């Protein structure tokens, strides 16, 4: 029996641009997933704790302020320290393509850039999270 995919959509750091995060959270809900949106101004610690408490399968991080190289790997690191490295972390926002290899090396599995559709993200999650 398949259970619903649980997703945490989070905004780390000081960036307050949440249009994308909110639209994606809603699209994922419409696609049948359980989605928790953290709101803005979350520390990496708060995000990792929420992910573990909510028992999510996957975390989507949104950052448009250019602080992604510091913040995204921190979330991955804290999840690992707390023994939750099976939670997949992906991200999006304003992220230069040249930063993607470094982010992937730090454990962020996928990065979505401007122009990506909610369909792309739904598909990515459905293909990468096991539900049975």
């Amino acid at each position, binding site marked *: 029996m398949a259970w619903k995919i649980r997703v945490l959509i989070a905004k780390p750091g*000081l960036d307050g641009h949440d249009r994308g995060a909110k639209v994606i959270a809603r699209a994922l809900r419409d696609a049948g997933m359980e989605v928790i949106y953290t709101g803005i101004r979350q520390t990496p610690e708060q995000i990792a704790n929420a992910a573990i408490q909510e028992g999510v399968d996957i975390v989507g991080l949104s950052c448009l302020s250019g602080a992604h190289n*510091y913040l995204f790997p921190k979330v991955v690191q804290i999840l690992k320290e707390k023994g939750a490295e099976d939670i997949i972390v992906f991200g999006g926002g304003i992220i230069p393509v040249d930063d993607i290899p470094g982010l992937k090396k730090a454990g962020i599995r996928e990065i979505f850039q401007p122009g990506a559709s909610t369909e792309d993200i739904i598909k990515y999650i459905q293909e990468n999270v096991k539900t049975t």
Partner: protein
Amino acid sequence: MRSVTQPFRADFRAKALNYIPKSAIRIPNYEDEVIMGKNILEEFERWEKTTLNKVISKTVEREPSFKTTSHIEMKRLYTPLDTADVDYCRDLGFPGEYPFTRGVQPTMYRGRLWTMRQYAGFATAEETNKRYKYLLEQGQTGLSVAFDLPTQIGYDSDHPLSEGEVGKVGVAIDTLKDMEILFDGIPLDKVSTSMTINSTAAILLAMYIAVAEKKGVKSEVLQGTIQNDVLKEYAARGTYIYPPLESMRIVTDIFAFCKDQTPRWNTISISGYHMREAGCTAVQEVAFTLADGIAYVEAAIRAGLDVDSFASRLAFFFCCHNNFIEEIAKFRAARRLWARIMKERFKAKRDESCMLRFHTQTAGCSLTAQQPDNNVVRVAFQALAAVLGGTQSLHTNSRDEAYALPTEDSVRIALRTQQLIAYESGVADMVDPLAGSYAVETLTNEIERKAVEYIEKIDTMGGAIKAIESGFIQGEIGESAYQYQKEIETKKRTIVGINQFQIEEEPLRDILRIRPEVERYQKEKLSRVKKERDNARVQETLSALKKAAQGTENVVPPILGAVKAYATLGEISDTLREAFGEYKER
């Protein structure tokens, strides 16, 4: 005695009848004008049944209906029938006179072009100062400061929450020392400066006044703006610090301080831009912005200020999006509606209190990372709409801003876009040229009508503050954003290069990057300032500020005192955090 026109007309008719076939000309018979209204309706219906029907019975139009971003139906054709109830003197009037539909100034751009004011700032004050000098050299006519997020949210560059954020989205300002560097070599008595700063607006304004003072420029002559619009921070932008009531107190303290100390300074830029960027429609942009404006005016009046003593220094800030006609109509509707609100609701007596003066920025959310040169064209159309809408000041986005802050080359093209409109297109040479267009006037009326509906709804909720605390405004914005995205993904709405006319392409690589050394450099600079200043004096000023904040004294003078003693932005903000508490999003 025959009138001056009669011989001319007779002559004209005679010449025309001789030289042109009778069937080709229709010399106006002015007696017909009396029954023109009836004729138009009959003629329109006849046209629909014959000429139009011949075409649409064979070929359907591209869409079953065409709608603006506000879901307003765009008719196939607008005629005098649509504007039959427009009373020219009541609804349009003349530029520079109530209700200001046609512009806040009688000569508009014939007297003075809009201010070309490119929003700029990144990394350190030194680097941003260089960019300001470049922009001024290239012909921009006003400065606009972008601050980094720590500065906007009251954190110094060495605060744990500032890590990774220093200098990224704007310039890092920790103390007066940074501000001195930022404006080095810039004559503050000659250049006006707009600062996009909200929760920490009082601090940055105080720094600006202090820097000017050091340059021998009195605060009374300073020209500029602070955004200082905290309500939209809760609704859409996110750089709030303190809870709403305490934040409103700071805002009204600034109004009171500025009316005497900086009478030429715009104390607030009531903004719709950010809510539009967050996804709301043009109608919502007008409605929510003006509802916020109403809340500010009410707060100032409650704080004991007479409406005519501060209202002329309120300014506004709008987005300019893609739908050309809707945007032009939107600006005109906003002007007329605000004038009516100030006169009828707040009983303002001065004309200046009723003028909606505004800055415009072209829509960042319309830029694509795909085929970025297309953005130059988008921005050109948007900028043109803003000029035809009568903006006082304009920022044009750069082609690479879906990727990063603009490079020098990209921002030069953006500035040239404004200069091309100003000097080559001719639209700046007459006032409100599109007035009278059946489409423009109908949409102006429609947008005003729909915005009023929203404002009345917000009134029944208890005003904008309540509407934000309950999440109503955020919900409307989010709903519009979601619908827009769905339209794009279902291809109901075409975005060139995204869901149609795509190409195989590499992402842009030549983009502006903020060097990681910036954060370290800024922290070192901050540490030096803290060592070299009179720390006892700093503590005195912060105590005085705390006392004022906990009481009813205006907080701006103690902030000015602290700033001059080189207290840091973080220290001042934290003092206010102790007095006011912090806002937590629900």
